């Protein structure tokens, strides 16, 4: 157990916890955007920025991936922390002004309108989809392409691989800015990503005739869990 102070409150945290974990445990709310409790932290959006005082110096860090250290002093609502969050949200708003979530978070901090404009894009590169696809689904169908030295790309981006994608829609589910969307129509599922449209054939239930899940996803589950082939010939409703 380590003891740290968050907003003047002494908090006990387990070894390996982040500041965000410790704050949550103590009932102190820190706003987040690219964080999900079931996934690893990326520290990408900077919305959970807090001020810490360590070895006598004050600085900013992101609560979602900074370890709760013994003796650490954390200020979640200091002028400095709030200003850091305002910066992150004003930047996000300039990039993706139509996201409800970003607007809501920004409003809470008094950011109404960004003072600068940018070419708008739906994806904010938070990589929740990349992490979900790797850590939960295991299909590893989404890659984060970063910019770098001698790299022939105009802009960092997140790319789906049609070959690896199983059409499960976890990415659309977790995307905080609706940059990835999914729609089922008839026997087809369409997943729209910033990189383009992908189509998946849906499986028809033998009993009721309803199209209920992508064939590719069902095949993936059968193979991964070594289930009997044909187990998904009927939908869960008809099986029950």
């Amino acid at each position, binding site marked *: 157990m380590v003891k740290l102070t968050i907003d003047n409150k002494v908090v006990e945290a387990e070894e390996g916890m982040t500041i965000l974990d410790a704050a949550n445990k103590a009932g102190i709310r820190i706003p987040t955007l690219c964080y999900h409790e079931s996934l690893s932290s990326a520290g990408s959006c*900077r*919305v959970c920025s807090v001020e810490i005082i360590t070895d006598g110096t004050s*600085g900013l*860090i992101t609560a979602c991936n900074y370890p709760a250290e013994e003796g650490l002093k954390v200020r979640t609502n200091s002028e400095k922390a709030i200003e850091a969050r305002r*910066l992150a949200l004003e930047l996000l708003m300039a*990039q993706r002004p139509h996201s409800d979530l970003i607007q809501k978070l920004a409003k809470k901090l008094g950011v109404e309108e960004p003072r600068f404009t940018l070419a708008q894009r739906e994806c904010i*590169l938070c990589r929740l989809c990349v992490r979900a696809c790797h850590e939960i689904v295991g299909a590893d169908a989404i890659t*984060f392409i970063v*910019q770098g030295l001698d790299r022939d790309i105009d802009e*960092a981006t997140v790319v789906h691989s049609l070959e690896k994608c199983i059409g499960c829609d976890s990415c659309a589910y977790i995307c905080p800015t609706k940059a990835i969307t999914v729609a089922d129509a008839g026997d087809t599922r369409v997943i729209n990503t910033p990189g383009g449209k992908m189509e998946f054939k849906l499986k028809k239930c033998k009993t009721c005739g309803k199209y209920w899940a992508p064939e590719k996803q069902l095949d993936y589950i059968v193979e991964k869990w070594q289930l009997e082939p044909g187990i998904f010939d009927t939908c869960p409703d008809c099986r029950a």
Partner: protein
Amino acid sequence: MSEVIFSSWAGKVVDNRGQKGAKAEKLEFPLQYNGHQVRAFMSWNGFVVADGGVNIVGMAHSYLKEVEKLSCGECTVGYIGIKVMAGILDRIISEQGAEDDLDLLRWLGSGIKENAKCDFCASAVTPVLDTVNYYKEEYLKFIIGKIKPPKATYIVRVTAPCMEACPAHQDVPGYVELIRNRRYTEALELIRRTNCFPGVTGRACVAFCEANCVRNDIDSPIAIRALKRVPADLTSLKIKKRKAGKQKVAVIGAGMAGLAASYNLALMGYKVTVYDEQPSVGGMALVGIPPYRLSKDILEKEIDIIRGLGVEVKLNTRVGKDITLEQLSGEGFKTIFIATGAHLGREFDIDNRKEASKGLVDGVEFLRDFNTGKKIEPKDRVIIVGGGNVAIDCARTCLRLGFKDVTIVYRRSRAEMPGKKEEVEEAEKEGVKIHFLAVPVKVLTKGGGVVGAECIRMELGEPDASGRRRPIPVKGSEFVLKTDMIISAIGEAPDLSFLAGGEKIKITEQGTIAVDLSSYQTSVQGVFSGGDCVTGPATLIEAIAAGNRAAASIDQYLRLGKVTLSGEDKAGSMLHDIALSRRRDGGIIARRLRQSPEQLAIEDRKLNFNEVEKCFTPEAAANEAERCLRCYRVMLLAVGSEK
């Protein structure tokens, strides 16, 4: 001393504006590049102005545009922030700026500096912030006076402390990032641009990069070497086989330098023939590094790629004996690259060397014999004299061969040992004993065979030329160590006897081949040389780097008839010294422990030569790569005139 008008370098502000003439100011680096006076310089630690005619706003704009290209996309504050700042500067220099823009730039800049995720953006904004703070009136000339920026060209260079420390200047942050995102094919492609032996160096490199990793000052360096092994082991590139071109180049020595040069030359379309006196390809990497550190099939796999490019290898051929340099010229080789390494063991000083006909062995020869498959009978006791990597390799090899009692005798203390620290630790864990501060002075023999060594204790005196404290014998401290064999591993030297045939290739006083170190040209037209035969015994990566650069020189020589050095090579120390600096200029970084790949258990290393270190799992590699702070540094130099 350089004359500066203004400097904000490293947070120290020097302002000579408004005074008559520039004043000399002691900077950490000379303002010289490629023989030209640098008029202004901008990089992650601030900016320096030597010529008042340079338009600083225009320069800051160009600088930020370069920064924008490298901003990775990992975090909102860095990625979008830099973009917004660049947009504001665009606005200012195109007569659309407002005074508020300066406050905005300050607000964004300090926000990025304090809270970007990694070191790149956080540091990169520093000089731009400095220009806004100290050259505000220049910005106002654009905003209020609506002036247009002059046309200027700048020299741009991107590097990082790890890249600069690596002799081959590999793009370390680049491939570490690709490994983190599990993009192994691209990582391997990137590594191969500057290093055609990723698997070999991923195992056996000394990793100068790690020694200069910025994280040394926070917790511990990134495990760069072990990370490099991941794409090398987990993926392979389809490198197209090709037929060799027409123009011929001879390479003498099939070691790292010779092979790296061959690889590059073959890719450029030359027909390369490599000669080596050994029966197999690989040089020191093959005959010097034991398989528990570098499995032979890895080396073979990477050599096969080079052969696949049409490089022909002639083995068992010693130049100077089986074929002469003149004969090579006669066969139409207009250029020759000599990369024969340093394979001659140096003998240590003992009174009665001749008495011991058996049991006194040279370390390099010992490793060569073992690595080329000669049978070595293990004895009960062996002493290895020396403290470098060859000594450690001999000791650990002996242990695996079944020698029961393996002792290293080293004349200085642990702190001065040139062998890699981890190697020394592993050797000790495996059971190698080390006798510090002692040296053999006499071999004790019986019937021509070694039975012991009379040693003398040493104490450390004043530092010598190498900077290490000089060992001094302690009078009357002689003692005897029983042993059946003594391996001498106190250093190696190039064997240049093949040049004895009257060629006019100049040799240095140290017994190495003399070359111009930026072009690798020897004193004879068309003959180039690099690697250990030029530097004396060095490292794999230094040899690979020499091979790369020599290939570029040879290509120039064959195409243009002369070698015109690149500005970078000639520039010498200015950019190099600045780029090596590990000084950060960003916010707080969380301490996070370095991860190491799994190792073979000590009991599983006995009597076999299986690789001790395993490959990182993709998951562990991604976690370790996540620690990288991506310390790229953009450097912008104003050299020419502005119109």
